[in-house]
């Protein structure tokens, strides 16, 4: 199923290029992706390797710093830089899996709700309303408490909390598209309900979903970091950035680098994704209006 015309991608890219923020964000994300793929090659150390002789070493540019621990070490002597690089894998993994789950299930539910309307619509939307009524982090915490702490469970919980946004978005688009002439035309030539939903209507709802997905990516990372910070997400010794923050709580005053760098990593990644998402939204929307 081709989502966009070929020249649509090119036009989108042309508009995307106009956003400086979007390009910077894309650049940083490229670095992160590089880390994800080549972590084994570029990380100076194994992330769980503990060195008793190099506990809480500050970054290399300070007085007490020591090469090759470029960004210093943590309380048990693990290299910060290596942990950050490997941590990128977890963040990207989290974001990708969570968003995929939320998008696939959310789009399906939204399609069903918008297309069939009636009691199915009511059922699905009220379910979503219930989920939305809870503060998202609280709901995730509650789910993790039930399922047991761990990264995977945290991800399921976050995906559930994100579901309503995609359901609503898809449903709104389906409602506005399903009475269009081209849908009726497909019906006249014999398209059944499933074909109409997935083959005819869905491709026309993709643009806002893509934008929402990029923004949810960053939310997923933040939520996972928050859960990790609370001890309910990734468990040590996983170098997930949020968990790293949690472990570093007690060192805020005496070893700032143990806290700052994971925090910075989260901040920059989330910022980049948001910039890309914004630029993408602008590129996909006014394109309709400009020419």
């Amino acid at each position: 199923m081709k989502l966009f015309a070929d020249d649509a991608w090119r036009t989108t890219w042309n508009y995307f290029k106009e956003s400086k923020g979007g390009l910077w964000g894309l650049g940083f994300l490229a670095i992160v992706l590089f880390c994800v793929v080549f972590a084994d090659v570029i990380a100076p150390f194994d992330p769980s390797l503990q060195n008793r002789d190099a506990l809480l070493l500050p970054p290399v540019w300070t007085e007490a710093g020591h090469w090759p621990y470029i960004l210093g070490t943590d309380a048990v002597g693990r290299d910060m830089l290596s942990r950050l690089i490997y941590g990128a894998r977890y963040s990207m993994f989290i974001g990708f899996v969570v968003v995929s789950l939320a998008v696939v299930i959310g789009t399906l539910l939204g399609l069903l709700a918008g297309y069939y309307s009636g009691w199915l619509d009511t059922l699905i939307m009220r379910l979503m309303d219930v989920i939305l009524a809870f503060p998202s982090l609280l709901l995730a915490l509650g789910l993790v408490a039930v399922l047991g702490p761990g990264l995977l469970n945290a991800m399921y919980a976050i995906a559930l909390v994100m579901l309503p946004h995609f359901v609503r978005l898809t449903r709104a688009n389906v409602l506005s598209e399903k009475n269009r002439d081209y849908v009726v035309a497909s019906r006249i030539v014999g398209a059944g309900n499933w074909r109409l939903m997935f083959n005819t209507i869905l491709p026309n709802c993709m643009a806002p979903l893509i934008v929402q997905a990029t923004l949810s990516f960053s939310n997923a990372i933040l939520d996972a970091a928050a859960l990790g910070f609370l001890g309910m997400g990734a468990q040590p010794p996983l170098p997930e950035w949020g968990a790293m923050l949690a472990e570093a709580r007690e060192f805020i005053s005496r070893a700032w680098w143990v806290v700052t760098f994971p925090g910075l990593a989260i901040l920059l990644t989330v910022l980049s994704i948001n910039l890309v998402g914004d630029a993408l939204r602008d590129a996909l929307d006014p394109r309709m209006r400009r020419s």
Partner: protein
Amino acid sequence: MAEVLRAVNLQQEYVARQGMLQKPLIVRALNGVSFSLNAGETLAVVGESGCGKSTLARSLTLIEKPSAGELWLAGEQVDTAHKPDAALRQRIQMVFQNPYGSLNPRKTIQQMLEEPLLLNTKMSGDERRQAVATMMERVGLRPEFAERYPHMFSGGQRQRIAIARALMLKPQVVVLDEPVSALDLSVRAQILNLLTELQQDLDLAYVFISHDLSVVQRIADDVMVMYFGRAVEYADAKTIFSHPQHPYTQALFSATPVAEVGEKRERIHLQGEPPSPLKPPQGCPFGPRCAYVQDECRKEVPVLRELNHALVACVRVEAINIRVTSLPSI
């Protein structure tokens, strides 16, 4: 000439909910429409918004099954009891009004044109490609454009694609819902010529819905004027244009501007607006706006009766037409 389409007393109702506490209202969008159409002929359905012509189009193509009445396609009854199936789709198809909304923006022409074949025949991929190319040439499009998307085409070209799509299954009847209204003047003639050509070559029957009387006068064999879900006048084109009998038909013709500069025409002034289907008037639905309305008009809804080679739904036709001396012909 073979009869390919017959509608007998078609009715279509919608339920209008009035909130949780009140009883739902039944809205009659189609209130008993009957006509017959032969191969190679064009029936024009004329009327303004709210008259039910769009509902008629949807009922004929069975997008919505009519609430009551009979529909016969090529001698076979297909209405309320039947589910639209492949056989049916190969008999009747539709072309929509808006060339910018009737084509899926995310599909190539190839995908759109082969969809009917994919869903209804067992043709192979190559056969389908060939059929699409042949059809594109038939409607005046270059086959190499098959991989393009709708937004790359002009309004007239899109309408050609829509016509091609309607013809992929080789139907006998094509319902055209205002097919040229949204097109530029210079393009309209091209599309109308194409439709005429196709009709002659393929012996197609057209149900041509339009509010543009100059177009209707050109291409229609029979004309049915609709008002408030009913046919108020039904005659062959020549008769109806030379001698319209129903007051609404007369007003409609009179209101249509003509591209000739001459004496200021005697206009029939129609006051007010069409009634709301939620509050149907007593008796003749045109009564409230009719210049000739009398008490007898409010007694009951007039039925179509034969008068001067036409079917007219008006109880006072004879009285009216003695008064109106001359009406400008278009």
